[in-house]
């Protein structure tokens, strides 16, 4: 869970109550929190901030509509993350139907907006590698690294066992490492090919 102090947690709970009574500011605040969660988790999971904005908006709408049914307001964040997971899954399916991939292999570049691609810098391999993981692995890694949730908290969000979460985390990391090594080898391979061409041109 996000590292909330008691007062912060109470603040969330109080705003949930106020939002349910129709307080406009509280509803805006709740929407913003839900939107942000959706935006960040979806960006991590889908590697596309534009699509993540859509997910964030949808999460905010669903959270506001479902708020009156939330029985335990102190569980707001976990509940929101679950909604995020559902919306990310839906967005991923939609993207799959259009055969879209965040990495354009032909062009050798990420299909993301320029500012985000620039912000990635040397880390663009992370986006490519994450795209090769399973949906659940990406979600678990996202909850752990973006929101700092531990395995117990993640287990509560994805309604699974702690052992399953630990397994998803370790396998996800191992897979990322494999991907990173493959990337390194292919980079070395392309550098070697460039060197060979340069030598041939020099000889020619």
């Amino acid at each position, binding site marked *: 869970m996000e590292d909330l102090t008691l007062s912060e947690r109470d603040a969330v709970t109080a705003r949930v109550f106020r939002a349910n009574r129709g307080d406009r500011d509280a509803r805006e605040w709740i929407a913003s929190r839900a939107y942000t969660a959706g935006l*960040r988790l979806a960006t991590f999971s889908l590697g596309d901030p534009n699509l993540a904005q859509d997910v964030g908006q949808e999460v905010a709408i669903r959270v506001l509509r479902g708020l009156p049914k939330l029985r335990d307001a102190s569980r707001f964040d976990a509940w929101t993350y679950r909604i995020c997971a559902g919306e990310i899954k839906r967005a991923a399916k939609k993207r799959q139907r259009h055969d879209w991939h965040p990495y354009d292999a032909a062009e050798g570049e990420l299909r993301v907006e320029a500012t985000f691609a620039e912000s990635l810098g040397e880390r663009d391999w992370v986006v490519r590698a994450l795209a090769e993981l399973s949906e659940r692995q990406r979600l678990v890694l996202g909850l752990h690294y973006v929101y700092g949730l531990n395995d117990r908290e993640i287990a509560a969000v994805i309604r699974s066992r702690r052992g399953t979460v630990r397994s998803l985390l370790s396998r996800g990391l191992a897979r990322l490492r494999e991907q990173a090594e493959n990337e390194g080898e292919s980079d070395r391979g392309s550098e070697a090919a460039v060197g060979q061409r340069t030598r041939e041109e020099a000889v020619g």
Partner: protein
Amino acid sequence: MNQADVQKALKEHAKAIGDLQPDPERIHVAVLGAARKAPGRRWTPLVTGIVCLLLGAAVATAATGLLDPALESFLHGGKSPGRQLSGKALPSWLRPAPGYNAPDEVSVVASSGEERLLAYRQRGWICFDYGSHAGECRTPREWRRDLEKAPWILRGPVGRSVWFGLVDASVALVRVEYREGGTTDVLVRNGGFVLDADRARDPQRLVALDASGDEIVSAPVVYPTR
């Protein structure tokens, strides 16, 4: 690259993502969107379909209780109600003959003297013959629809002064009232009846009664003018 490098890269990536800020305009749109009525879910058509099926089944079940079980079964594809006829007992117009698609089973639903209400199925139609005077074939749905509209389907007078009819389960007896006050009663059999009235006594009214003797429906007797 070792595991620590991967974790470090992930942390940096997550930190960069943590700096992403939502678009305030879109948050506002989300708040407004949430205030509107939620659109139907994707499975709404499916749920609606199931509900319609259940309601349809409930209506069908309710209709089942409205008709005599034998008649109900007949309308649902079961055998014709009443006493089955075969061979020479069949009326001449329903006997097998070359080039004639004779019905498989013919039954007498109700009778009065020589007058019989016959039932049979022919090419998917449900047919009732009113003695040797007339007959009609309709789809099971049409028969059912008429029996849902009114407690009886009355045909007559034909011949001397005979009425034929199909009734729903509420009708137990059909009566004809004469001008001098007397009556002739017939019990409903297999969801039908044949009432042979005495024309000389000047029939005035036909009445359907339930098992308690309460009147359900009535019709004035009108003879066709020649």
